[in-house]
């Protein structure tokens, strides 16, 4: 027992040393460096336009000339075009803007005023989520933007036969997925984060109720217009039948036929 203690201490410190070394080797740029940059080292030199690819399963954050903080958690490719314009090509991005920022995608763009937002690509669509401020999302070919209240999400898809980007009405954010994502990127303590989520959920509830009301209203209008159309068709059919009967009667009378 007497000799085991120094032996244990020796092994412990030896292994601790190794672990610290391995951890240090991945720390080269904030939490994780981007795996590739074009032009080389453009992020460090703040040389824009700058395109880069971030590593998968690693948190990457970058301060854009004091105007915004961008964070990614998965493999994300994006281009910083100017200090206030970013183009997302793939992956997911959290934006915490201190001034107005423009996020471009292939199917439209979003204007993010001072506030937080998520923009992410999933298959053929780009999703825009407003977190704590209203954001405006402009789809390709749209004359008016979608105005998203905090807690709402809207997606844009490729331009379709209407010559506009495919899209749907804004819906409430998936709260559980949002909480998981935010838990990975925030620097708050447990208690602070719980308060943050509670606060968000309160707003989210109000937004959800508003969204439901809008959807309900739209649905009712759609049902009413469908009913109106069906009545109109019935009336037309009845008129047509009456006219047919009248003509048939006339035909029989003129040709002295019995019917």
């Amino acid at each position: 027992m007497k000799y085991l203690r120094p032996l244990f201490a020796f092994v412990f410190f030896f292994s601790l040393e190794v672990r610290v070394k391995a951890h240090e080797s991945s720390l080269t740029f904030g939490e994780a460096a981007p795996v590739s940059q074009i032009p080389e080292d453009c992020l460090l030199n703040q040389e824009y336009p700058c395109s880069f690819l971030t590593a998968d399963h690693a948190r990457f954050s970058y301060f854009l000339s004091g105007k915004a903080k961008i964070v990614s958690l998965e493999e994300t490719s994006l281009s910083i075009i100017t200090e206030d314009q970013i183009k997302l090509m793939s992956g997911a991005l959290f934006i915490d803007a201190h001034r107005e920022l423009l996020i471009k995608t292939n199917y439209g763009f979003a204007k993010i005023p001072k506030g937080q937002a998520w923009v992410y690509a999933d298959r053929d669509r780009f999703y825009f989520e407003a977190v704590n401020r209203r954001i405006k999302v402009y789809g390709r070919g749209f004359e008016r933007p979608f105005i998203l209240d905090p807690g709402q999400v809207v997606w844009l898809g490729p331009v379709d036969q209407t010559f506009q980007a495919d899209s749907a009405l804004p819906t409430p954010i998936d709260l559980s997925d949002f909480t998981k994502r935010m838990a990975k990127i925030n620097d708050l303590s447990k208690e602070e984060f719980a308060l943050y989520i509670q606060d968000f959920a309160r707003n989210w509830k109000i937004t959800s109720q508003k969204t439901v009301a809008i959807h309900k209203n739209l649905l009712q209008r759609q049902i009413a217009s469908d009913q109106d159309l069906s009545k109109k068709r019935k009336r037309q059919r009845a008129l047509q039948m009456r006219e047919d009967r009248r003509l048939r009667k006339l035909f029989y009378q003129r040709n002295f036929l019995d019917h």
Partner: protein
Amino acid sequence: MSTQFYVTYILCITAGMTYFYSVIKDHYSGKHTLQAQVEFLQSKYDKEKLKNYILSSDFEEYRQMVAENIESPLLKQKKSPEKGYPLRTLASLSVRFPPMVVGPSPASELMREGKELFSYGDYEQAKNSFEKVVKLHDGSVHSIEAHFLLAESFFQMEDYEACIDFVNKMVIHFPEHELTGFGLMRLAAIFEIRERGEEAAKIYRTILKNYESNDLKLEARSYLSRVET
């Protein structure tokens, strides 16, 4: 006290030896070189991946821009969208290119050239064309004919050895083809020229036995009767 000192001493020696062993092992195993290579390839791969993302994104953006701006000319043409055609795609609006005209294959061209020269009696030049077909387009449909005409060209130029070579090749590669039968007729003729009548007669009999072409049989029979008399 002495035992504790002894244990510490042994531990230090063991740790030192382990460290020394790992350093030596790493140095001679080429691990660092391989690691550097892997890192280099990985960074190259990431760079290519990013380039690919940029290109795909630019291309997609261009496509979307075209799709968005196609609207005005189409609306001028038709003010209201057609009923029953809700799924009009970009493909239906794109320009149709005329169908691609497939020209003759290089082997056909060489054969045509060779046959023309052969018919003018320019066997030397014709031979070059047929040789190109045999060498460069061995899998083409003209291969058998090229072999036969090449053997025939050599026969006309009285280069009998080369002619025999090509007839042999035909027997190996296309034993049942009618043209091989005609090639064998040339082989028999060479034997006749060299006054080896018996061997020529054997070849004629083989042709009569193995080939079904009437023209070939008729010719072989007449030559055989001539050799036998």
